[in-house]
């Protein structure tokens, strides 16, 4: 009952964010990338109405740009990067982890070694070096998130597969003559995937957080293109005089990651109930 309520909360939050991100060109009072009359427009507080009659729901930043509009434009990038990056990474991790746990032996050692090699390189360093190698951008961020994000799910999957493999129903299926692919798909995967799903929901969140973190350090999405991370970095200097600049993108980040996580939890409970 409660999980359904929380799932609805997550769904509503996500729907509002997606709607806002899609409709933002029509909602925007002014172009969010153009710097207009800075002196008249800069650092307006939330709900302020400027001289030309535009309402600024969440105020303006130090260049007089509408914070709400920029926040919603940033949502497009964050949602895309988080979803695509983590889902692809998790899919890769599930395949590698279950195959590795099922086969054992040399294949398991090789796959585990590959995962351990990547886990042992700090993810942030890999991201930074890749940002130096290629043009920083959405494609680069997504590919690096996939290449550096599958190992956690793979480890969980491998451990769970090892546990499930020893259980009687797997032996029963095998003695009935089921081929390994069918046993893996029908018997091992449904019983082993729970932790991987929880890890993936956390993965959507951490992918979004990682992207905004890079932008916060000035190494991800570059201004004037808005991203929650670089908006936060802007607001850092004005945390006392204009706290809404840092507050707004932070709350958007929290709402997004919260929504993804609540939905993932509901999905997990649903799968466990079957």
């Amino acid at each position, binding site marked *: 009952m409660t999980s359904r309520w929380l799932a609805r909360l997550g769904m509503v939050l996500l729907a509002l964010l997606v709607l806002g991100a899609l409709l933002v060109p029509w909602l925007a009072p002014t172009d969010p990338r153009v710097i207009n009359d800075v002196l008249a427009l800069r650092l307006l507080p939330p709900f302020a109405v400027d001289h030309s009659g535009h309402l600024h729901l969440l105020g303006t930043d130090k260049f007089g740009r509408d914070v709400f509009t920029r926040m919603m434009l940033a949502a497009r990038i964050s949602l895309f990067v988080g979803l695509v990056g983590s889902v692809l990474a998790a899919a890769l991790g599930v395949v590698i982890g279950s195959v590795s746990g099922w086969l054992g032996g040399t294949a398991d050692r090789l796959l585990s070694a590959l995962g351990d090699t990547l886990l042992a390189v700090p993810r942030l360093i890999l991201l930074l070096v890749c940002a130096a190698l290629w043009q920083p951008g959405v494609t680069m961020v997504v590919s690096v998130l996939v290449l550096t994000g599958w190992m956690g799910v793979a480890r969980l999957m491998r451990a769970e597969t090892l546990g499930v493999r020893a259980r009687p129903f797997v032996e029963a299926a095998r003695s009935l003559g089921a081929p390994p692919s069918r046993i893996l798909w029908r018997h091992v995967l449904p019983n082993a995937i729970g932790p991987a799903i929880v890890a993936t929901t956390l993965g959507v969140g951490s992918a979004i957080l990682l992207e905004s973190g890079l932008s916060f350090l000035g190494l991800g999405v570059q201004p004037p293109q808005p991203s929650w991370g670089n908006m936060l970095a802007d607001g850092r200097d004005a945390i006392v005089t204009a706290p809404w600049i840092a507050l707004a993108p932070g709350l958007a980040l929290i*709402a997004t990651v919260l929504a993804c996580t609540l939905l993932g939890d509901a999905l997990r409970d649903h799968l466990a109930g079957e």
Partner: protein
Amino acid sequence: MRLLLRRAVDAVVLLWLVLSLTFLLVRVAPGDPAAVLLPPSASPADAARLRAELGLDASVAVQYARWARALVSGDLGTSFVARRPVTAVLGDAIPVSLWLGGISLALTFVAGVLVGAVQAARRGQRADIVLTVATTAVYAAPSYWLALALIAVFTYGATYWGLPQGMRLPAFGIHSPGAELHGWRALADVTRHGVLPVLTLAAVGAAGIARYARTMFADILDAPFVRTARAKGAGRIAVFTHHVLRNAMPPLVVLFALALPGTLAGSVFVETVFAWPGMGRAMVTAIAARDYPVVLGATVLYAALVIGANLAGDVMLPLLDPRRRP
């Protein structure tokens, strides 16, 4: 014993793989360290001299051979920027990060496991729902945003609202600048500087652990052996310590082993916001300045830690859980 030996050999091979991969990634990256280090007015001849001095004029293969030979004898090279041995640069940063990360990690696991256990025991009740929303929201918050919010409240806010001196906490660095403190007063000063960073790291970490622990404890509480234990009249505490905790330990130990190396490098953002001179900040600064020896040195250390932690987790898991024995 033979298995252990094989694992150890694997670990050394793995470390070498990681180091070679990182060396290649760092050296193939475009951008000339000499261009970053020299002033714009420097002539091409100056740049060539600096490159020769830093050993950057040789081919990548020769550089790799030199670096590997030095590494075996424990020499990580000299920082391009600080012109000090890398071991000294890292030696300054490690204790700072260990202090910060160690305390937060301990707090993270104690608080996270406790909250998760309470939630699982009260599943579906009001306490569970409130804690679920709270942990999910904290987990969703970026650490640097939490850090900024804490600074806004406890540094600027505390002064603005006129809170007592004890509630006003410093936002930057590990020592009060210019103060000559000794003994207990120095310790108190460091502690005051540590409260906000530790709180930030522990809050984010504990929220994640609590979410995991709730799922895990809930699964265990549903297991038949717990019902059996209750049916035969075991007390609540006995059921928890002998049946629930025993089954919860293996995954928790593995999680802890995996989280350990993060104490050294996981706090990049928090160290950046609070200006803590630790490993995370050292790495970001070194990458920005293309200080190759420091980047590689930090990676050597980090990789060795991760590999050691994985090895420890792999060795401990069968000891703790007979079902996972090969």
